[in-house]
């Protein structure tokens, strides 16, 4: 875009915020935590950090930033994986943290609706739903830190997408401050509301480039009365897909999650000293973690045992374990959830959050595996939400070496993997977003007409380009 350069969030701008009525306690020290990218891939910059307490204060900040042409980086829990919350280049922006807007504004159990402010930590929202015997199903590894505004801005996925959908599907309405400082009041608690353009759907997933989400009306669900979890060893990714189809036919909507785990991932847990226990003496090449949530009269453990029996008869599964207590369920899930931590400790050359048509996954794994092997002696940990067609395809250095031994490999590996994904009509970003790391990918793989519409929307809503500069469209 040919907008003039932005101005830094300097002392003069701080004075304008004060003059506009932003209270002193909203100004925060520029602490390193606001500027860190968790894997150290970016070092952020900020001239100023503010943490408003109410929506009107957010509006005050954005209005002033728009007038002064100062860039604004909305900041939730800082757990994003594509650099959307970290601005490293250009004039030092204003970091707008939602950390002090964490209230649960209301819960309507009979409507299955909860209204939370953007700064509410995801785990707190889950707990607020549980307190009224309801489920807020959005669940991901960083749920103890991630804030609801960030999970909506990035349309986060997680482990329950198979049954309940992405963050966007879990959101009925939003309240947001638009780039001109106006407040869009859209906290409708309605399931049906066909009254024009879907602006909720637009701002959810916009990664802070079209405004700041300040609160959201979220969908709740009845809590499954009976839950069960099993880990099954599958012969191959193709067998895993056939088992998924079998599970769908046998338990239907009771399938909470269907997660692919690789032998490499299980090996990393032991290699890096993670606490999760792998229940196999000999690591299998592939396993799936299956989680069921059924009604009060049902027995998920029996359903899982039946599924295993049917899978064994079809030659799909050879071994497996089942959780007989909630502690064991937590143990199996800990294994799945510690894999990202193990990956971090090993140190990935590249991590790719990819989405594929389900039936293309086995072929993709073969083609991508061969292509990566041609690039170097790398190890691949492919794992993730198989039921959603979403894999985390991460590439690592060989044992005993580190990613710094392979300078420049990151870009080549990413290009190779993403080109193959595009060839299978997949997506280079399934649930993490575009952020700053995947701006070039969006430009390369995005449909031209779709990109043109996105640019037109951005120009119409944020003509000065103040909102999360550099993210998504670059």
């Amino acid at each position, binding site marked *: 875009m040919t907008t003039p350069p932005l101005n830094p969030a300097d002392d003069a701008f701080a004075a304008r915020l004060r003059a506009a009525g932003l209270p002193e306690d909203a100004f925060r020290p520029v602490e390193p935590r606001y500027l860190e990218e968790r894997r150290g891939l970016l070092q952020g910059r900020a001239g100023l950090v503010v943490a408003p307490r109410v929506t009107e204060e957010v509006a005050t900040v954005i209005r002033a930033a728009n007038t002064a042409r100062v860039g604004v980086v909305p900041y939730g829990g800082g757990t994003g994986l594509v650099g959307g919350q970290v601005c490293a280049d250009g004039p030092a922006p204003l970091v707008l943290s939602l950390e002090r807007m964490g209230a649960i504004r209301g819960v309507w159990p009979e409507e299955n609706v909860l209204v939370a402010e953007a700064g509410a930590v995801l785990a707190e929202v889950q707990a607020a739903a549980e307190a009224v015997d309801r489920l807020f199903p959005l669940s991901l590894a960083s749920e103890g830190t991630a804030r609801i505004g960030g999970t909506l801005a990035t349309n986060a996925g997680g482990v329950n997408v198979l049954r309940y959908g992405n963050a966007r599907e879990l959101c009925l309405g939003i309240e947001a401050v638009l780039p001109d400082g106006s407040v869009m009041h859209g906290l409708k608690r309605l399931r049906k509301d066909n009254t024009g353009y879907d602006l909720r759907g637009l701002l959810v997933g916009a990664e802070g480039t079209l405004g700041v989400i300040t609160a959201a009306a979220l969908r709740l669900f009845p809590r499954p009365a009976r839950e069960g979890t099993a880990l099954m060893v599958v012969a191959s990714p193709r067998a895993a897909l056939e088992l998924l189809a079998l599970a769908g036919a046998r338990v239907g909507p009771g399938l909470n999650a269907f997660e692919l785990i690789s032998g490499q991932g299980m090996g990393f847990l032991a290699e890096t000293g993670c606490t999760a226990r792998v229940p196999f003496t000999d690591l299998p090449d592939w396993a799936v973690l299956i989680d069921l949530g059924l009604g009060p009269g049902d027995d998920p453990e029996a359903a899982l*045992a039946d599924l295993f029996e049917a899978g064994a008869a079809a030659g799909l*599964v050879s071994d497996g374990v089942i959780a007989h207590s909630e502690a064991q369920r937590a143990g199996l899930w800990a294994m799945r959830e510690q894999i990202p931590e193990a990956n971090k400790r090993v140190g990935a050359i590249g991590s790719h959050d990819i989405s594929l048509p389900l039936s293309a996954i086995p072929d993709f794994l073969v083609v991508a595996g061969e292509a990566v092997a041609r690039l170097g002696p790398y190890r691949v940990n492919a794992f993730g939400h198989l039921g959603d067609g979403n894999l985390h395809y991460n590439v690592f250095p060989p044992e005993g070496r580190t990613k710094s031994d392979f300078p420049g490999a990151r870009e080549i590996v990413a290009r190779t993997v993403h080109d193959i994904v595009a060839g299978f009509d997949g997506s280079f970003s399934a649930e993490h977003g575009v952020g700053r790391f995947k701006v070039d990918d969006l430009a390369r793989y995005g449909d031209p007409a779709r990109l043109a519409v996105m640019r037109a929307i951005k120009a119409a809503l944020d003509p000065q380009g103040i909102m999360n500069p550099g993210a998504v469209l670059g």
Partner: protein
Amino acid sequence: MKVLVPVKRVIDYNVKVRVKADGSGVDLANVKMSMNPFDEIAVEEAIRLKEAGKVEEIVLVSIGVKQAQETIRTGLAMGADRGILVVAAEDVQQDIEPLAVAKILAKVVEEEQPGLVIMGKQAIDNDMNATGQMLAALMGWAQATFASKLDVDGDSATVTREVDGGLQTIRVNLPAVVTADLRLNEPRYASLPNIMKAKKKPIDEKTPADYGVDVSPRLEVVKTTEPPVRKAGEIVGSVDELVTKLKDAGVI
């Protein structure tokens, strides 16, 4: 040698326990039930002894409602050989008291003649910590409670006990009753192939009358209450503020 492992069906350790409105007990309707975690450890220890070639057969026994059969099946899927289910209650709310359980177990022991009884040190629902000791007394056997390590060697067992202030190692003659503490081992998951095999393992169904034991309660629950709710803490802005508040509270 044969090992007998009593297993109890209890409210799952991770379930949030709710007291019934009338205070007569905790609500067990539609609540996840699992094997008592200490009993799970006892089953695991028995399986490890079998894997080490020191035990030939593991017999599980559960006393309670009919659904306790699921608890026995769990243990069979872990690796035990057969089960005895003593149906002593129809209502899931009814707890069979330790003395009645110990008397039934004593009869089962007379019939089965195990060389060792390994059981959980206590059930996490009533926290009695009594049944193992009572069984040992009724049988006139040695007892080694709160075991964190167990070595069986011929006709004796060496047991490390977790006692106040440290560990105590004792040797007991077999047959004996050993009660398992938390650190004895980490129980395995039940394997799915074993669950399929466990369906064929036999479970004998009995009643207390078969053993001539009266399970009528001798204790009366007067009242059940939830623990008092902890008061919320307060976040202070600075050390000075903390010191001032502590002084105001008269604690420093």
